[in-house]
């Protein structure tokens, strides 16, 4: 098992192998996303029971929660890829990190946007300085910072390393930020509006949600792979193997 993992790791580190492996993986991943998305969305939006308090408006949870979870995980992924690049200077890791940043920021935006839409019927306002909303907003700012830094540095290698350092600093800070924001919020608004807690969810609501979460992770994988492939196409455009590949 361990050998298999290390071999896979080394293979993914090579642009050529990455292309070949993801050629095989992508159809499966896309099929899983399509099926999971279909099942999760149809069940969540149509067949899951109506919430006794929030009515039908709670159904946005099937987009909101997966997006928020994926946005947070993507930042950690980005930092890990950055660390791999800093330590071993594997170019692929830098391209993966670069590919993740805009995707993670987009999921962050989706989570914030759906949160605002959800907030209107349940809380009566689009925006509230709720702990979770605020920490998502700060996560978005962190993504913006990483992307801005990457854009600002002309030398490519430098920009990868700088972004990696910043995302590592950010990933250490995320728990502190989350904790402090939680603490701040519960302090200022004791009887605050709480999201429906998970254990209290009915099983028919919960299963589509879990399916949607898993599906969104697979979607993240697909998007990252596609963007990384674009990076490979661009950076390896002069290499022989790519020319052969494109010709065949």
């Amino acid at each position, binding site marked *: 098992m361990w050998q298999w993992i290390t071999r896979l790791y080394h293979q993914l580190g090579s642009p050529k192998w990455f292309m070949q492996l993801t050629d095989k993986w992508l159809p499966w991943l896309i099929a899983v996303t399509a099926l999971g998305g279909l099942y999760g969305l149809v069940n969540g939006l149509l067949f899951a029971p109506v919430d006794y308090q929030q009515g039908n408006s709670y159904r946005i949870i099937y987009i909101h929660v997966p997006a928020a979870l994926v946005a947070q995980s993507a930042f950690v992924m980005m930092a890990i890829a950055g660390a791999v690049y800093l330590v071993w200077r594997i170019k692929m890791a830098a391209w993966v990190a670069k590919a993740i940043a805009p995707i993670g920021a987009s999921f962050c935006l989706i989570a914030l946007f759906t949160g605002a839409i959800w907030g209107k019927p349940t809380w009566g306002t689009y925006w509230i300085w709720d702990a979770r909303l605020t920490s998502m907003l700060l996560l978005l700012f962190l993504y913006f910072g990483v992307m801005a*830094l990457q854009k*600002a540095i002309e030398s490519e290698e*430098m920009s990868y390393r700088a972004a990696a350092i910043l995302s590592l600093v950010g990933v*250490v800070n995320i728990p*502190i930020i989350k904790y402090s*924001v939680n603490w701040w919020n519960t302090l200022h608004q004791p009887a605050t509006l709480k999201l429906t807690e998970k254990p209290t969810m009915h099983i028919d609501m919960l299963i589509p949600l879990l399916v949607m979460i898993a599906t969104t992770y697979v979607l993240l994988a697909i998007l990252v792979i596609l963007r990384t492939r674009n990076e490979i196409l661009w950076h390896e455009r002069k290499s022989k193997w790519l020319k052969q590949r494109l010709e065949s």
Partner: protein
Amino acid sequence: MSLTRATLRRDFILVARNPGEWLNPLMFFLMVAAMFPLAVDQDPRFLAKIAGGVIWVSALLATLLSLDALFKMDVDDGSLEQWLASGESMFAMALGKALVHWCVSGLPLTLMSPLLAMMLALPDDAYAALFYSLAIGTPILSLLGAVGAALTAGLRSGGLLLSLLILPLYVPVLIFASSAVYHAGLGMPYAGQLGFLGAMLALAVCFTPLAVAAALKLNLSR
């Protein structure tokens, strides 16, 4: 160690001969804080509520303003390359640079804060909390800011970018510090918040110099 000491000595001399370096952030601090009563409300009861937060936001902005120049000169005139070539511990150098920055920005702000507190009608009980929170919190701002300054040192328009990178990281400090001041104003205990600030300072002292050193090395190959 001698190189670090020599660099710090040079930096302090430069600051002493060019008072604008520490006076400008200080004046900026005063001016920003003075805008709030003008823009929002001059009622002392209202000001008393927001004074802690206003002073802290102003201190944060003033710190950011002076961060931009932290490593810029050393990158431009080649001192940075000499440090890296000397084999001297970059950890100590980064820590020392942050210390210089704090002496130029955070320390004067801390000493000046009672004046602003009086102008913003901060409750009497909160003076000590404000002073302590600034004394513990502004070094964190300098240390975290040094990471951003090192990352953007070689860039032409680094200043605005630096603020973008660093502001989200300042949020925990801002939250705990302004809450300490607010609670002290209500006559409640605030040792817990100061404890958190102290913990963050300890973390920052241990880890940010590593990031600063790594980021400074980037500038070599630029």
